[in-house]
């Protein structure tokens, strides 16, 4: 019985001509004396025969090639569109600092100017008033400092 179990494990390999010489001899000598294992081999051989003789499917020679050409062309087209979008995306990405910097500068300018006291007395008015204008006074008026 132990031998039967061992031989049964080798039967598929033997059937497929994959068993080495020692295993082949072991199987063959056992099969000469064991009807059950012989029947098992016969059944396995029939199963193998049925699967081997199973109808094969066949495609027209260029059927799959044509389908693949279409699919690959479609992929390339899609990739092309995506690369255009990606290019636009990259451009936008590169240009982002420009509006950000402009907004930051605008805010800074507004903050600075809002803190500056507004001169109610301009340089022009000072000159028209006929009073003596020194460089210091002119600068103070230009910079918005009240004299």
């Amino acid at each position, binding site marked *: 019985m132990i031998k039967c179990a061992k031989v049964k494990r080798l039967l598929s390999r033997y059937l497929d001509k994959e068993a080495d010489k020692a295993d082949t001899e072991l199987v063959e000598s056992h099969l000469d004396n064991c009807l059950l294992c012989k029947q098992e081999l016969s059944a396995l051989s029939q199963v193998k025969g*049925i699967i081997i003789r199973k109808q094969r*499917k066949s495609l027209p020679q260029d059927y799959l090639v044509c389908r*693949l050409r279409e699919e690959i062309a479609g992929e390339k087209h899609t990739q092309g569109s995506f690369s255009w979008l990606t290019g636009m995306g990259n451009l936008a990405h590169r240009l982002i600092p420009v509006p950000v910097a402009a907004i930051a500068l605008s805010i800074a300018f507004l903050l600075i100017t809002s803190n500056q006291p507004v001169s109610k007395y301009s340089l022009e008015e000072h000159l028209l008033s006929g009073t003596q204008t020194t460089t210091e006074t002119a600068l103070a008026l230009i910079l918005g400092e009240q004299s």
Partner: protein
Amino acid sequence: MNEDILCIERFLAGEEEGFEALVRKYQDRVLNIVYSLIGRDRESEDIAQEVFLKVYHHLSSFRQRSQFSTWLYRIVMNTTYDFLRKRRNYTSDEGAIKNSVALLEGPREAVLTKEKAEIIRKALGSIPLKFRAAVVLKDIEGLSYIDISKVLRCSIGTVESKIYRARQLLKTQLLKSEGGAI
């Protein structure tokens, strides 16, 4: 130089014809493996197409450490497993076997080849995928045990036991068909 390698080199040099020659050479083999594993016509063609698309995109990463066919069959297996996983079709199809037995009821002479093919398809579909894959690679594609072990990434001993188990299960299923198939 191996014919497949020449095709691959042509493709990598920019000639799509190299890839197309590989498709023409292997399309029926791929289709028959997939069909034997999933048993559905239309979807087998779609999976075969998906397999070759993967080949197209990844051929540059094929390092030629194994034969191209081994690499290709590995892609076939993975793509088919993915398909079945998505379809949750790993379980055995007992209903299909019952139908196959019903097909054989009646005079044996009346059983048509097409019906027998259907019985075999259903019997194959009824055994667990891990056993089915091994027996399909052996009996449909005619690979050696060592090549099957490379495709399925397992030892030769495992291949041997999977094929034996597959044939035992197939025998049981085919015998159920009242001697129609076996």
